[in-house]
């Protein structure tokens, strides 16, 4: 038995081919151009990753999420799902509009549900806890439109995930997969990184307590300095082939744009993995954070506010290799100081790989380092 979907319903929007008659014959004034990231959101709504949402939020849900971290119907939700677009459209309530990509290819059919203005300042302060434009999520909001276009999706075109298609599973597929494997309890691991030894220990510590581990790397737009999608996937393939038990670990990728909203995003990560059928999620140090905007364990604290989330978070302190313990330790288990901790900053790691060096095996499995070394430019620039 997998975990029931969030809000009690796994949303499944009808799939349509690009050539479908339902998506043909729309005039220019019945179309709305959307970007790649919005198209990814469409796909996540359509296949149930964002259940119970069946479209882009209206004003009531939006305000409720900002103020109370819940949808209008009281279901926990912490980051608005908005379609921000231009004001200069003339859609009427209930009109069917065609969402198209940059090349004018259909992405989805949506029933227009009105539009409303957002305050970017308010959005930034309430979602990210800051209006500092150095924060990547804040910068994105301030660079975008203020008009939010609401609407329910009626049909969606299945996205082409190219090289990642075989590694992309929908919530319906993972639910069946977990059930077939006989997993009653599955812990999710959200990542946007190539695996270090500390990630491996985090995952395996959690796996020791449940039936299965669902490694779910995020692919999509990320900030400079993060590993590129192809590197994340290749390194996970390398570590899983060599160090993970096949029967109790599954990996598939999630197409999603990181928001770097720290604690609020941790809740969204839990909701998405709940829809995949997971019962637990690993929340470590500085989950979904960036810079020093959030406390190191703020993403753990926020779970206290959601007794009805329907996901059990598994909290861990940071793991690391301790030279004096001569093994993997954590803040909870190791009495030694920073000087004994084997750690590399992102900057140092990037410099090492750029100079043809690899980190020691106590920090990163050799198979992972070798995989990264094969890429000329492994980091987002």
């Amino acid at each position, binding site marked *: 038995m997998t975990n029931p979907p969030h809000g009690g319903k796994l949303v499944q929007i009808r799939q349509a081919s690009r050539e479908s008659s339902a998506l043909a014959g729309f005039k220019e004034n019945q179309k709305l151009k959307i970007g790649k990231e919005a198209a990814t959101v469409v796909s996540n709504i359509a296949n149930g990753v964002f259940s119970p949402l069946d479209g882009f939020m209206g004003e009531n849900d939006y305000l409720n999420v900002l103020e109370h971290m819940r949808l209008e119907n009281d279901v926990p939700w912490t980051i608005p799902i908005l379609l921000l677009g231009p004001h200069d459209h003339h859609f009427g309530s209930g009109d069917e509009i065609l969402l198209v990509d940059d090349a004018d290819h259909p992405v989805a059919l949506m029933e227009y549900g009105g539009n409303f203005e957002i305050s970017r300042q308010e959005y930034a302060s309430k979602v990210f806890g800051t209006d500092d434009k150095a924060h990547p999520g804040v910068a994105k909001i301030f660079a975008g439109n203020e008009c939010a276009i609401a609407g329910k999706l009626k049909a969606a075109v299945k996205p082409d995930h190219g090289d990642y298609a075989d590694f992309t599973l929908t919530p319906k597929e993972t639910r*069946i997969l977990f059930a077939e494997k006989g997993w009653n309890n599955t812990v999710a691991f959200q990542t946007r990184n190539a695996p270090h030894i500390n990630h491996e220990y985090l995952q395996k510590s959690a796996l020791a307590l449940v039936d299965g581990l669902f490694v779910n790397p995020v692919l999509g737009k990320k900030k400079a300095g993060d590993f590129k999608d192809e590197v994340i996937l290749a390194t996970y393939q390398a570590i899983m082939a060599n160090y993970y038990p096949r029967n109790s670990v599954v990996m598939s990728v999630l197409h999603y744009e990181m928001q770097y909203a720290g604690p609020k995003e941790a809740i969204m990560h839990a909701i998405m993995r709940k829809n995949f059928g997971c019962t637990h999620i690993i929340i470590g140090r500085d989950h979904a954070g960036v810079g020093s905007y959030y406390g190191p364990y703020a993403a753990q604290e926020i779970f206290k506010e959601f007794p009805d989330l329907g996901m059990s978070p598994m909290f861990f302190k940071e793991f690391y290799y301790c030279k004096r313990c001569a093994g993997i330790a954590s803040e909870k288990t190791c009495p030694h100081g920073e000087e004994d901790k084997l750690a590399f900053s992102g900057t140092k790691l990037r410099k090492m790989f750029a100079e043809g060096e690899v980190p020691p095996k106590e920090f990163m499995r050799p198979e992972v380092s070798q995989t990264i070394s094969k890429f000329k430019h492994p980091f987002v620039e």
Partner: protein
Amino acid sequence: MPKYTSVSIPLTLQKRLEKLIAKKTGFKSVSDYVTYVLREVVAMHEMKEVPEPFTSTDLAEIKERLRALGYL
């Protein structure tokens, strides 16, 4: 935005809750506490009533894809 309503509870229970809240941090009022507990209880019951979101046709097709991809 959410609207609120009143729910009657025995005064004796309210007093016990006030004492509890005074000792424990995190809750601002009896209403906050009751809302928290009820959300937990309601969610537990709602979870029991959710049917599997796929048909037998879905099941066969998806299992075939999962086998082809090496997941099963």
